[in-house]
C-alpha cells in the first residue's frame, strides 16, 4: 500500500523538477519580487510611526496642485492662475511647474477609482514615491543587466532599493518631483544605453519618451541633456563612433527636444537657453561627422580628404561659434542661470545669490553625509570603476561618465547626492557582482577538481590526487571563503545601516515633531498643523498672511489662505521686501505690510521647545536677502563684533526689529526651564535681551500650545476722527 502511494508522489516530484535554467529564472524572479516589495516597505517607516501624511515643504504644493487637478480636470489645471500665492502678483501655476508628478498621481488615482478602489488622493500621493522607488529597482536590474550581467543587475536592484541617498527623497509622504524623477532619469539612461547597444530606432524612440517624462517631472532633466551629449562627444573622441550611436542620439535628441518643448515651463528654453546648447552643438557635430564619414567613403584619395576635412571643420567651427556669438549678443540665446553657475562654481551662489545659498540642501556636501548616504558604496564605487575600465564598452563608458559627473555634482550640492545614487549603486553592484563571481568561480572549479578526483578512484588514490594538485589551492580556497564572508559581512552591515538611517533620519515628516518626554514617553509637537488649521477655520477666507517663504506652501495647502511669498522663489524682490519688513522697526514694517495688504503675520519660534530651525535662526538670511535688494538693511547692524546674539549684548537694531519682537512678545514672562530666569530661550540657550516688548500696530492673534507658531494680526489704522 505504502509503496503504491509513494510512487505517484515521487513521479510528481520528478515532473516538478526544474531544469537549471528554469531554477535560475525562478530564483531571479523571486529575488526581484522580494526586492520590489522591500523597496516599498522600507519607505513606510514614517507612515507607521506617524501617519499617512505629506512631508516637508514642497510636497505640500504638489499635493495641493494634485488635488486641484483631480477636482477640476487637466485643462483647468493647465490654465490655473493661482491668486493665493505671491499676493498681489499671483502665480501662473500651469506654466511654472513640472506637471509630471501631479499627472502621474492623478492618473494612478483615476485608474484605482476605475477599478473601484475608493482610495483618497492623499494616500495615492503619499505612496507615489515608494511605488516609483520600487519601479526604479526594476529599472536598475535591467540597466545592470545591460551594462554588465544579470548578477550585477540583481545586486544593483538590491543596493538601490535600500540606499539612503535615494530613500532620503522617496519615503512615503515625500511627495516631491524627485520621487518620480529618479525613476525617469534612470529609465531614460537605460533606454538610451539600450538604444546605443542595439542601434534600434524603437529603443531610441522609447528613450525620447523617457526623456519627455523626465522633463515633465523635474528640472534635473538638464543633467540628462548635458550628460548625453558629453558622452557622445567622448565616444566620438575615443573613436567609438558608429551608426548605432548616430541613430540613437539623433532620434533621441530631435524627438526628445520636440516633446520637451510641449512642457510649458520648458517651452522654447530647450532651444534658446545656454544650458541646452551643448546638446544642440553635439547634434550638429554628429551631422558633420556623418557627412565627413560619407565623403571619406566616397573619396578614395586620402590627401584630398585631409584638405576637405580641414576646410569643413574650420567652416563648421566658425559657423557654429558665429551663430552662438550672435545668439548670445542678440539675447536670443539666454545665458546660464544662477543655479547652473552655482553647480559649476560652488562659491558662486554664496557671493551672488543669497536665496540659493540660504537653503540648507544647496550647501556643499560634507564627507560625513557621503558616508551617511552611501556607506560601503563609497569604497565599492572606485572598485566598480576599475572593473568598468577593465571591460570597456559603450555601456560601461556611459556608466563611468554618469558616475563621475554626478559624483562631482553631489560634492557641490547636498541634494544632488540623489542624482549620483543610481550611478553609485550600479557601479558598486558591478564591483560586488564581479568580485563574488570571481570568488565563486574559484570555489566551484576547486570543488569540481575534488569531485573528479574522488570519482576516479579509491580513498587512497584520492589523497594522492589531492597532493598532486596545486599547493596554493587550499589556501586560495580558504581565502576565497574568507573574502566571501567578508563581502557578506559588509553587505549585511550596509543593509542594517540603511535601515537604521531610514528609520532614524529620513522618516520624520518635519510637520509633526516628536521628542522624548521626561519619562521616556513620546511627546508630539503638532504645532504647525494647529496653527494652519486655526488659520483655515478662524480667519476671513481672503486674509493675506505674511511669513518667511519657507512656510508659504504649507500655509496655502493646509491653512488655505493667501500668502505673500512661498517656496517657489521666483521673485527675489518680493522675498526681499518681506525680509526687509521682518528686519525693520515696527513702524517702518507696518508701512510695508500695509502696502502688501497683510492681515496676519506668522512667525516660527522655537524658544520654548528648543526647536532650532526657527525664524530667529533663519533671521540673518532675511537680513541678507533683504539687504541684497534694499541697501538700507545692513547685516552689521544686527551683529555685535560679527557675532549673532539675542541676549542682552545683542545689537540694538536686533532687539527692536519686527522679527525679534514677534518671536519674543511676552516671552519674558514665561518660565521655560527649571532653575533658569524667565525668558530663557531654550533653542539658543540664553536669556533674551528685550523682555519688555510692546506692540503698537500688531496684536497677538494666536500662539500654538508649544509656542512654535505665533500669528499676529495687523491692526486696522486708527480713526482720524
Amino acid at each position, binding site marked *: 500500500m505504502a509503496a503504491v502511494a509513494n510512487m505517484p508522489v515521487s513521479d510528481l516530484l520528478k515532473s516538478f523538477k526544474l531544469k537549471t535554467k528554469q531554477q535560475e529564472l525562478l530564483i531571479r524572479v523571486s529575488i526581484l519580487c522580494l526586492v520590489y516589495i522591500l523597496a516599498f516597505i522600507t519607505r513606510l517607516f514614517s507612515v507607521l510611526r506617524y*501617519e499617512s501624511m505629506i512631508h516637508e515643504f514642497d510636497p505640500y504644493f504638489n499635493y495641493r496642485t494634485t488635488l486641484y487637478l483631480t477636482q477640476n480636470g487637466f485643462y483647468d489645471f493647465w490654465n490655473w492662475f493661482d491668486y493665493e500665492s505671491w499676493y498681489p502678483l499671483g502665480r501662473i501655476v500651469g506654466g511654472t511647474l513640472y506637471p509630471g508628478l501631479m499627472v502621474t498621481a492623478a492618473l494612478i488615482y483615476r485608474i484605482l477609482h476605475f477599478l*473601484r478602489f475608493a482610495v483618497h488622493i492623499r494616500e495615492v500621493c503619499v505612496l507615489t514615491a515608494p511605488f516609483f522607488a520600487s519601479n526604479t529597482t526594476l529599472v536598475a536590474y535591467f540597466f545592470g543587466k545591460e551594462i554588465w550581467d544579470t548578477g550585477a543587475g540583481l545586486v544593483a536592484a538590491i543596493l538601490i532599493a535600500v540606499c539612503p541617498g535615494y530613500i532620503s527623497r522617496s519615503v512615503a509622504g515625500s511627495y516631491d518631483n524627485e520621487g518620480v524623477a529618479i525613476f525617469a532619469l534612470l529609465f531614460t539612461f537605460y533606454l538610451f544605453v539600450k538604444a546605443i547597444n542595439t542601434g534600434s530606432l524603437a529603443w531610441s524612440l522609447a528613450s525620447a519618451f523617457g526623456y519627455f517624462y523626465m522633463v515633465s517631472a523635474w528640472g534635473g532633466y538638464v543633467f540628462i541633456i548635458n550628460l548625453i551629449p558629453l558622452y557622445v562627444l567622448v565616444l566620438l573622441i575615443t573613436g567609438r563612433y558608429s551608426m548605432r550611436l548616430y541613430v540613437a542620439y539623433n532620434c533621441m535628441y530631435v524627438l526628445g527636444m520636440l516633446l520637451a518643448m510641449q512642457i510649458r515651463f520648458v517651452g522654447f528654453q530647450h532651444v534658446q537657453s545656454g544650458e541646452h546648447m551643448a546638446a544642440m552643438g553635439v547634434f550638429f557635430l554628429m551631422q558633420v561627422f556623418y557627412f565627413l564619414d560619407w565623403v571619406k567613403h566616397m573619396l578614395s584619395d586620402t590627401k584630398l580628404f585631409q584638405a576637405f576635412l580641414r576646410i569643413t571643420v574650420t567652416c563648421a567651427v566658425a559657423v557654429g561659434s558665429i551663430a552662438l556669438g550672435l545668439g548670445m549678443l542678440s539675447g536670443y540665446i539666454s545665458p546660464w542661470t544662477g543655479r547652473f553657475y552655482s553647480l559649476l562654481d560652488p562659491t558662486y551662489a554664496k557671493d551672488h545669490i543669497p536665496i540659493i545659498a540660504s537653503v540648507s540642501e544647496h550647501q556643499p556636501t560634507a564627507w560625513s553625509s557621503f558616508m551617511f548616504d552611501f556607506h560601503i558604496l563609497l569604497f565599492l564605487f572606485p572598485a566598480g570603476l576599475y572593473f568598468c575600465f577593465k571591460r570597456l564598452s559603450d555601456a560601461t563608458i556611459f556608466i563611468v561618465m554618469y558616475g563621475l559627473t554626478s559624483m562631482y555634482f553631489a560634492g557641490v550640492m547636498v541634494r544632488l547626492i540623489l542624482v549620483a545614487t543610481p550611478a553609485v549603486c550600479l557601479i558598486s553592484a558591478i564591483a560586488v557582482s564581479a568580485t563574488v563571481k570571481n570568488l565563486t568561480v574559484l570555489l566551484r572549479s576547486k570543488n569540481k577538481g575534488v569531485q573528479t578526483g574522488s570519482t576516479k578512484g579509491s580513498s587512497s588514490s584520492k589523497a594522492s590526487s589531492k597532493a598532486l594538485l596545486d599547493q596554493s589551492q587550499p589556501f586560495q580556497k580558504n581565502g576565497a571563503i574568507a573574502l566571501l564572508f567578508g563581502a557578506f559581512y559588509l553587505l549585511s552591515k550596509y543593509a542594517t545601516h540603511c535601515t537604521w538611517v531610514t528609520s532614524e533620519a529620513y522618516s520624520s515628516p518635519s510637520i*509633526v515633531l516628536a521628542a522624548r518626554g521626561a519619562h521616556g514617553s513620546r511627546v508630539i509637537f*503638532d504645532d504647525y498643523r*494647529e496653527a494652519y488649521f*486655526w488659520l483655515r477655520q478662524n480667519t476671513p477666507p481672503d486674509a493675506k498672511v505674511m511669513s518667511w517663504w519657507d512656510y508659504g506652501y504649507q500655509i496655502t495647502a*493646509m491653512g488655505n489662505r493667501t500668502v505673500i511669498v512661498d517656496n517657489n522663489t521666483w521673485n527675489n524682490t518680493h522675498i526681499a521686501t518681506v525680509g526687509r519688513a521682518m528686519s525693520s522697526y515696527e513702524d517702518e514694517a507696518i508701512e510695508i505690510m500695509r502696502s502688501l495688504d497683510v492681515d496676519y503675520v506668522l512667525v516660527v519660534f522655537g524658544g520654548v521647545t528648543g526647536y532650532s530651525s526657527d525664524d530667529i535662526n533663519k533671521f540673518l538670511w532675511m537680513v541678507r536677502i533683504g539687504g541684497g535688494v534694499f541697501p538700507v538693511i545692513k547685516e552689521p547692524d544686527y551683529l555685535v563684533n560679527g557675532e549673532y546674539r539675542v541676549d542682552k549684548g545683542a545689537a540694538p537694531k536686533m532687539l527692536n526689529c519686527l522679527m525679534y519682537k514677534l518671536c519674543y512678545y*511676552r516671552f519674558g514672562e514665561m518660565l521655560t526651564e527649571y532653575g533658569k530666569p524667565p525668558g530663557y530661550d531654550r533653542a539658543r540657550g540664553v536669556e533674551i535681551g528685550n523682555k519688555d516688548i510692546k506692540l503698537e500696530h500688531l*496684536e*497677538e492673534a494666536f500662539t500654538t500650545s508649544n509656542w512654535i507658531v505665533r500669528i499676529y494680526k495687523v491692526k486696522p489704522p486708527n480713526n482720524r476722527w
Partner: protein
Amino acid sequence: MEVPIRATGLLGFTFFSLLFFVCTSSPLHSLFISNAERRIDATSHIVKVYLTLKVENAGSTPTSEVLLAFPPTQVDHLATVEVLVTKGKRKKTTLVRLDVKPTELPDAPDGAKYFTIFLANPLNSGESTTLEVLYLFTHSLEPFPAEIGQSESQLVHYRDSALILSPYHIKQQTSFIKTPSRKVESFTRVEPTNHAGTEIKYGPYEDRPPYSFSPILIHFENNSPFPVVEELVREVEISHWGNLQVTEQYTLVHGGARHKGVFSRVDFQSRPTLSGASSLRHLLARLPPRVHSVYYRDEIGNISSSHLRTDSRKSELEIEPRYPLFGGWKATFVIGYGLPLQDFLFESSDDRRYLNFTFGCPLLETVVDKLTVKVVLPEGSKDPSAVVPFPVDQHLETKYSYLDVVGRTVVVMEKKNLVPVQNSHFQVYYTFKPIFMLAEPLMLASAFFLFFVACVAYLHIDLSIRK
C-alpha cells in the same frame, strides 16, 4: 437617485391630528390647572425646563388631551418635549411616557404654538392628574455683551415669561430659574420675586387667566462653553463580514460670546481659570461598547490629542480640538470607529434584517443644528425602509465603495435642531441574500486568475514577427 420613502405612521399621524382638532375646542375651557411648578435650568447652554402641572377637569365631559402653549419665539428653539405621568400609588409609582404632537389652533393669540398631550386614560369630570413635562431649548441664551475678551467672563440674557403661558386658567404657579453661578447682573422683578444663591424664584402667583404673559429678562454669568455642531454627517456602513463602520463629520463652533481681540497663550496657560473661562477645551463622546479602530482627524491629518476609555458597558472618547475654541471659533473634524456587527444587526421575524442604531450625536452636552444620518447598506440589498421615532426627511442615494459594481444603497435621514436626549434608536430594515457577500472575493479571485492565465499565455506564445 433620490427616491423619497415615507416614514411609517406619518400619514396616520396627520390624519389623527386633524381628527383631534375638531374635538378639542370644547374641553378647552373645562380644564384648569390647579397647581403648576416650573424649574428652569440655565446652567448649560441647553436650557432645560421641568414643568409639573396638576390638571383638573371641571367640565362635564371626559377629555383625554391637554394642550401646552409656547410663544412663537421659543418654539423655534424648542428641541424636544416629553411628558411623563406617574402611575400607581404610593411607593409603586412608575413613570409612563405620553404621546405629544405639535398642533395648530386657528384662534391662537399672538401666534402661540401648541403641543397636544394625549392622556393614557381620559380625565373624567372632577378628576385630576399630574403631568411631568420636560422640554429643552437650544440657542436660547443670548450672549450679552456679544463680544468678550479673553479674560472676561461670559454673560448671557435669558428671556421668558414669569407666568406660564397656557390656554388654561392656572390657580397657583411658581417658577424657579437656576443659574450656574451666584453672579446675576440683573433680573426683571414681577413681585413676588426672590433671588437666593443660584436660584431666582418667581411666584407664587394666584389665579391667572389663560394666556397670561409677563416677559422677564435675566442677565447672568454662564461660563460653560457652548458647543454647537452646525452640521453633523454620520455615515454607518454595514459590512456583512462582521463590521459596522461609523464615520462622523463634525462642524463644531463655539456658540457663546464671540472672542474679541488678543489671544494670549501666556495668560491662557498660566491662569486657566481666569483666562478663557468659557473656552471649549475638550469634549466627551460616548460611544457604544466594544468599539475598535477609533480615529480622530481632520482635513490636514490626525489630531493626536484624544483619549479612549473602554469598559464592558460603554466607551468614552475624550477629544480635544487642535486649539481651544473661543466664542465664534470653528473646528471641523472627523471621528470614525468600527463596531462588531452582531451588536447592532438583527433578523426580524419576516426574514428581513434590520440595523438598530442610535440616531443622535455621541458628543455630550452638544446641540446639533443639522444632522444627516446615512446608512450604507451592503451591495445587493433591497427594499430599504427606516423607522425613526420622530419625523425626519428621508431619501435614497447610491454610493460606490471598494469593488462595487452596482453601488450601495444609502438611506439618508435628515433632522434639524437636535439635543443629546434625543439619542434614541432608529431601525433600518432591508433584505439581503448572503450569496452577495461572495461577489467581491470571487471578483478578486477571478481577476488574479485571469492575470496568471495571461502570464502563462504570454510565456508560451511566441509573439516575434521574424521566424
